[in-house]
């Protein structure tokens, strides 16, 4: 026999739940609601809700919007829509052919079970400084498409990431699509973490001659491959000192550019 439901058994703080079925509807909700947060894969947002570290008044769940999970070729690169799961991007034949750097990076995001639900666009909008995908977008000179009731605009990666978990997306904008240019050769993504699937202590992305670093600054940053640690002031924590992070940047950069 099922037990009786106990309504007290909830972890997230109070929020009003919205489940739009079109991008227009989602945009009109984001434009009219105060303190709304977009829920896509939820693999970062739901833990924050469970800990009550995030307390949005409204959740706009975009998972019921049809036709927003495509991965397709566009403008010599690959476009990844807001509901394309990381696992789908990892397995995508188009991604493997056009942008194998993105495929390699996606494999480093947490674990497959997380990637079955997590989205590429969600990782970009969440903008964790230790996350792989923002650094890949930056190294490749990619961009995202932000849509709102006011219209749509393209934000280049160099203008998207503004701080720790902060982007230049406005409160009423939905990150509807990310565009990753074809990966130039040679390319590489290397990172060091304490355990498989953990966030990186430090990581490097090579796209041709360009180098982007992650885990060592408030946002992913571009760096000079010959002297990658110039101006870097990484933070220290229980897992790595700032000096160790700088050491990792030097070693990983050397490895990435040895090819």
């Amino acid at each position: 026999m099922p037990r009786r439901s106990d309504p007290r058994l909830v972890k997230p703080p109070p929020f009003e739940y919205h489940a739009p079925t079109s991008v227009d509807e989602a945009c009109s909700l984001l434009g009219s609601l105060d303190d709304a947060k977009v829920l896509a894969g939820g693999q970062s947002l739901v833990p924050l809700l469970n800990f009550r570290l995030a307390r949005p008044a409204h959740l706009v769940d975009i998972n019921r919007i049809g036709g927003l999970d495509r991965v397709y070729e566009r403008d010599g690169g690959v476009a990844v829509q807001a509901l394309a799961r990381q696992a789908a991007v990892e397995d995508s034949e188009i991604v493997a052919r056009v942008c194998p750097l993105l495929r390699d990076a996606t494999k480093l995001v947490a674990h497959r079970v997380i990637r079955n639900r997590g989205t590429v666009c969600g990782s970009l909008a969440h903008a964790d400084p230790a996350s792989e995908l923002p650094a890949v977008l930056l190294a490749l000179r990619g961009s995202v498409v932000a849509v709102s009731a006011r219209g749509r605009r393209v934000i280049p990666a160099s203008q998207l990431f503004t701080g720790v978990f902060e982007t230049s997306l406005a409160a009423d904008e939905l990150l509807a699509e990310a565009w990753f240019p074809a990966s130039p050769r040679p390319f590489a993504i290397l990172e060091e973490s304490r355990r498989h699937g953990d966030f990186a202590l430090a990581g490097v992305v090579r796209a041709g001659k360009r180098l982007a670093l992650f885990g060592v600054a408030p946002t992913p940053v571009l760096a000079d491959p010959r002297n990658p640690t110039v101006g870097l002031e990484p933070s220290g924590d229980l897992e790595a000192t700032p000096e160790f992070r700088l050491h990792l940047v030097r070693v990983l950069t050397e490895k990435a550019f040895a090819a």
Partner: protein
Amino acid sequence: MKVNGVEHSPPADPRRLLSDHLRHDLGLTGTHVGCEHGVCGCCTVLLDGAPVRSCLMLAVQAEGHEVKTVEGLARDGSPLHPVQQAFHECHALQCGFCTPGFVMSVVGLLAQHPHPSPQEVDEGIAGNLCRCTGYASIRRAVSRAAELSSPLVGKSGPQGRDGAR
């Protein structure tokens, strides 16, 4: 939403996590809840066939989808699912708390890689924590489960039961 083949209505409160809904509203306590922020893997269930963390989903999000929990792998009294059988044979559990999550992850892993390499096995179970540290047995169980799931089981040859490690 369908849970183990049975239609259920989602909970009234959108704040209810899928893990809590399964356990407290539907009485399916086989899905365990450990860390409740997606790290330990104990609450792993199949959503439309793919393993996901039930603690990182709102139950209302499962509306219109199919959920399978460890209770749905084998009916009472019928033979165990090959992954369950392999865990049993290889002693891949001690206290058992992590086991339902491991089993559901491995079901997903074998659907993706029917004959996983040692590296694919390690990556496939890396998202699940076992604090009795039975990982060596669990690795063996994954290989055994792959053998049990293979149509060659019971036939002669190196892939058959006699050839099991």
